[in-house]
Every structure is written in C-alpha cells, then in structure tokens.
C-alpha cells in the first residue's frame, strides 16, 4: 500500500484486516488518507450505506460490542477519577481532560466520554468509520464537539500532539508491532498522563470463547476477525508497557455472564482484560 507518511504506518496492516471488533471486513483499498473526510464517490457511498448504519444499531452486528462497552466505560471513568482525583459523584468528572481514542470506530467510546465532560479526539484508520462517527455525534449537542480524524497514532506523535488520557481498546491484537504501538501511545501521553489498553489474553479459554464460540458458533464476529497467536497475555502487556515507560498501575478482567447478558469486572483476566499505565518519563 502506498504510504504518504515518512515512517511505516502501524495501521496499514490493520486497514487490510478488520479493525477493532466486530465489524464486517472493510472494502478493499481503504488506505488511510491522513486527512479529514474527502468527498465520497457514489460506489463508496453504496458500501458505506451497507456498513455504516450498523455501528449504532444496538440490535445489529455490533450488539456484543455495545453490551461490552458499558463495563469498559465504567472502568475508565473510575480509574480516571482515581488518578486525576476527580469527584466520581459529579456528572462531568472528565472536564478539562484531553482524551484520545485510538481506533475509535463508530465513536462508541468517544460519545459517553464526551458527555462526561472530556475533550475528545477520536482517530481511526478507516475513513468510513469516521464518517459514521461524525454524523452520529453531530446529532446531540453534548457530543458534537468530538474531533474525529482519519490518521494513525504515529502520525499524531509526529505532529507532537499530547493528551492527558490515551485509550486503545481492542487494537493491540491487530497491529504489526505491539512494542512500537505501545511506544507511540506513550509518546502521545503527557507526563503523568495515563494510557488504557484492552485486549484479549492468549489462553485456552480465549481460544474457546473468542475464536471458536464468538466466530464460529455464536457468529458474534466474522470468521478471521482475530488471530489467536496475536493475542497478548497480561504479563507480556505489562512488559511491553514497562518498556514504553508506562508503569502498569491497574489491571482488570472483563467477564461475560450469558444468562444475565451482562459484563462485569473481575480478577479473571483469562479472556478479556484492560490495563492502566501511567506515563513516567517525559
């Protein structure tokens, strides 16, 4: 793929395979443009029509992600309050914090965080996602201020952007070089800022649940969405983050109860988990 960027784009691989769960595969040639939305031609609009509408359809193909979203938001909210000493009982505890969501997709994470007062930037390599995200966010004055950019973490590092909170959920298992990715996330973080990374553990349980069950039995994700060998164990993630000058302060497992259809936080990191690292170097 032709690269307009001087350094290899971490998302060039991600763009060829489906981005963070669980989307249908993007149309070919969806290379990052590195700029805001350009005009979309008629053929693209038709494909856009097919995919785009489903991000925010709560009963559609993204339903499992919508269900899981609530627990991720809950963890992120309380961890931010703890770290930045914000009042967790306030309606807008994230006021004044600059936050970037790397791999934002349709904006499922950006919107709730914006309602909580954060100054949100969402970035994604797939331009279609950003089109959907912008349109949806524009409908509500509480989320209309979110900035959506079609770019990569690396490009933003290059442009010397820095944030209080950097979030990359369900991305690291898709990138070519996890170590470089962590370093980019760290470079985007202000000193004493924090980074959230969530991913899937490389374990027997995750093979059974995230691959076999989710992709082949339940049909939650298209087959081939995940490559089990690229899943990251908590120990590996901690090492990667440590090497990127991110001190891992918290880690929590996320567990799904199929009867109540609810996710909850737990010590069990055998399948899904989320980690919080604090930037310790300038």
């Amino acid at each position, binding site marked *: 793929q032709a690269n307009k960027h001087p350094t290899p784009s971490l998302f060039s691989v991600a763009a060829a395979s489906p981005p963070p769960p669980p989307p249908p595969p993007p149309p070919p040639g969806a290379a990052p443009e590195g700029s805001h939305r350009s005009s979309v031609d008629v053929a693209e609009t038709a494909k856009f*029509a097919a995919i785009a509408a489903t991000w*925010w359809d709560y009963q559609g193909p993204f339903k499992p992600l919508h269900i899981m979203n609530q627990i991720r938001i809950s963890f992120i909210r309380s961890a931010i309050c703890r770290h930045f000493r914000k009042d967790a009982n*306030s309606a807008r505890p994230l006021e004044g914090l600059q936050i970037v969501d790397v791999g934002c997709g349709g904006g499922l994470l950006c919107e709730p965080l914006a*309602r909580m007062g954060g100054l949100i930037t969402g970035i994604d390599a797939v331009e279609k996602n950003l089109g959907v995200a912008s*349109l949806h966010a524009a409908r509500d*004055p509480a989320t*209309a201020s979110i900035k959506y950019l079609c770019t990569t973490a690396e490009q933003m590092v290059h442009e010397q952007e820095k944030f209080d909170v950097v979030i990359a959920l369900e991305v690291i298992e898709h990138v070519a070089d996890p170590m470089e990715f962590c370093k980019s996330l760290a470079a985007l973080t202000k000193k004493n800022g924090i980074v959230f990374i969530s991913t899937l553990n490389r374990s027997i349980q995750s093979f059974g649940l995230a691959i076999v069950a989710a992709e082949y039995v339940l049909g939650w994700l298209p087959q081939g969405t995940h490559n089990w060998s690229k899943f990251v164990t908590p120990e590996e993630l901690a090492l990667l983050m440590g090497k990127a000058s991110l001190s891992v302060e918290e880690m929590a497992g996320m567990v799904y109860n199929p009867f109540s259809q609810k996710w909850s936080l737990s010590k069990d990191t055998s399948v899904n988990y989320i980690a919080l690292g604090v930037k310790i170097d300038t």
Partner: protein
Amino acid sequence: MMKRVVMRSLVRTQRRLFFYNSSSSFTQRLQFFQSAAGFCNQSEIENQAPPPRPEEDYDVVIVGGGMVGAAVGCGLASSAMTRGLRVAMIDSSPKQPTFRKHDPNAIPDQRVSAITPATVRFFQDVGAWEGVLSARPTPFDSMQVWDYGGLGFTRYKAEDVGEPLLGYVVENNVLLAALHSCLQSVGSIETMNPAQVKSVMFPSSSNLSPTQTKEAAESNGKQDWAQIELADGRRLRTRLVVGADGGKSAVRSMAGFQTRGWQYKQTAVICTVKVEWEHTTAWQRFLPTGPFALLPMGGTFSNIVWSTSPEIAQELKLMPSVDFVVEANRALLEDYGSQPYSGLAELLSSGLGKQLFGSELGTQLLGAFTPSSAEQFQVPPRVMDCVTERLSFPLSLLHATKYVNHRVALVGDAAHTVHPLAGQGVNLGFGDALALVNTLHRGVEGGFDIGEERVLKEYENERKKTNMTMMALLDGFQKLYATDFGPLNIARAAGFNTVNLLGPLKKQIITYAMG
C-alpha cells in the same frame, strides 16, 4: 417568570461555554430559535463566542406537578449526579402548593393517603420529610381487616415484624406542599405553571441515513429529541418526557401507549369524620358492595374511604350528615353478621397458651405465631359526626402495557391505577419516582443519552413486576368480594383466618405492603 428563565440560561451558558463548537450550523439553529422567540437581532449572533444552549432545550421535562411528578423533580435535584440536568416541570394549576400552619383543631382534608415506611425513606432522602412532619402526620401501627359475615378477621401489627409503625396517614395537600417546598429550596428545577401541554411529538428511534451531510445531521438531530408545544405557543425540546399527568394522562395517549383495564362499577366516597375515641389502627371491613375503610387522622378525627356501587355512592353523597353517620355505623359495626371470634386467640392468651407459647419448645412447635394472633377482634370506634363534604370518584384498574419508549417514561397513575383498597396507590407512584431517578442516575454516570429506550428499559423492568403484582393482589381481593355466595363466603373467611394464624405469611404480607 421569563426573566428568571433568561437569568438561569445565562448562568448555564458560563458552565457550558467550552462545550460548544462554533460551527455555522449551530449558529443557524440558534438563530432559528432566537428569532422565533424574538430575543436578539440576528447580526449580533455571528460575532458571539460559543453560542449558548437554545432557551428551549431541556434534558428532562416532567409533565404534571402532582405528588409523583414533584417527587421525580425532587429526586433529580437531590443527587449530585443528576442535579446538573436541565429539568422543567409543567403543571396546569396556577398556584404553588403551600403549607397551612398546623392547627390540631382544624378539620383535616378528606383527600389522604396511607404512606409506607419506604415512602417515608424516600421523602427523607430527598429532604422533604421535615416538611411533612411539620404538619403532624398520623402514624398507625395496626390494621384490622374483616369480613362482613363475621366469620373471620385478621389483625396486623407493626410489632409482628419488629417495627414501630406500619405507616402514616397524611393529607395529600401536605405531601404535595412538602415536595414543592423542597423543589423551591433547591431551585434547580424550572416550574412552569400554569401551563398546559398542547402536543408532544416523539421521534422514532432512527438509524443513520448514510447520505446525510454533517450539517443535515445537525439540523435533523433536533428532530431526534421530543418536541413539546404548550398551549401558550412556547416550544420545548427535550431528551426525555416524563409523563406524570395522572390517570387520564395526555402524554400516555400522545406517545401511543396501549392500556389494559376495566372500570370496577364502583365509586369511592371519601370524607373526614369524628369518631368516639382516638386510635392508631387502620380498619377495613369488606362488605358485599365493597370495602369500607376507616383511617386515623389524629385526635378523634378519622378518614372514611367507602367503595360501593355508584347508586349507593350517590345517595351517600347527597344525604344529610346525620343520616350518613347512621349509615356509616351500620356499615362498620352493625349490619350483616356477628362480630368475628378467634378460638386460637383465646387459647394463646389464656394461661395454658402463655405457658405453651412462652416455652422454648412451645415456640418452635407453634411455628412463631405473631403477637397479633393472640389478640381478639377489636370493635372499631363509632362514627359520631361527618365534618366535611363527601367527595366521590369512580374506581378503575388501568395499566399501560409499556412504561417507556424512546424519549418517554410514565410514572404513577399515568402508568397504572389501582383500587384504593389498601391505600397503596400513591406508594406505587413514589416507588416509580425513586426507580426512575435511580435509572437516570445510572444513565448519567455511564455517559448515556438518558432518553434512549435502552436506558429507560431498566426502570420499566424493575417497576412493572412490582406494580403488576400489587395490582393483581388488590384486584383479586376486589373480585373476591364482589360475590355474596355462602360457600364462597366461608372460604373467604377461612382464608382470612388462615392468614391471621400463619405468622410467617403474615410477616411477609406486612413486609411487602410496607415496601
């Protein structure tokens, strides 16, 4: 009134300045609203820094400022999480409810409710209980329910479940004034009264149309909220409409909710009376025509709720007070059968019973009878005088098949009306208010758009179960009593007696009724 609204919006602007981008489409929308309201001239607008939120945008609009509507308002105002929501309450009555100075000799109003400890806790949490206490509500600690045939009775006492009280009897005016005074002191809820809702338009929960431009999305976004038009022409836009406008709810019908229910062919007559002696018991006698309830109101005042056929109700309303008193005493004390008698109570309170009951083994054997099982039937006080006008209202059972939809939630009588049998109606409404406020609290905490159905569903799931159970119970009772047929009478009485004897069942009933 307008000035206060404008002042408030200026204050809000400061809090929200960072929050808005200054894209031109936003300015266009602002221009539309401001020119419609005739506020400032258009050329000034382009040069303004981030435009303030349009005057008419709200997060929650509560339609109906009655007890339940005001309770929702108080609940939202009392929690830090929801206090920042912009809330308006629309009521059609021109005056603000206020307290009368408490006068023990003044005649209590005949519209009263028997509130449960759960309701009391709600009032305490929102800061409205002090107001109620200042008007001296009447506590009651026992309840006696019996059959007209004299075949059975049940006594419930707060003691049975180790509580000091079963509840309080309070004038509805007092509850309303306490809640409104709470709203006034918090000050964050805008009350619009008198005001009438002319129409409400609800959006369908729509998906994105992919060929929209960003500008189109912003302007169409305003259709994604509920639009309310008031009778005086004002227009409001809100994330959530709360229908708290009573049994004949306009919001419920405008939102297209289906209802199920029936008329009971019964009318309730209510009035305040003076009785022979002071008491703290809620008395309820089931007559063939319907239940007759006597509630304590402090001193020798009591309140009568007499559910009967429409014809009899009409007679009762119109006859002179003296005649009404005679009728009331016949219904409560005289007609039909003899006084019920409990052999077991005799046994339990006798010397032998005390020995059995008192011993360790005895307690286990007898399966923990409640203290009230040892009490005989007590004769209620005679009615001496009727001191207020007799009011009446028809009774029905009604419930909406759904309580929520995209951008709308029903609470209180708008969602369900019940037979006033156990005085439970308003307690269900307060339970709804609490549940809705908690749901909205969780919605704000999770960064949701609080008007979305997926957020509101939680409230519906929680309340529907509780309300329908209570409604079925009360309806079942009511139907049971509509028939006067020997074997059924005996079976009914047996049912009464069984409940009276079975300690654990009784405890469960009391605990459930206390909320």
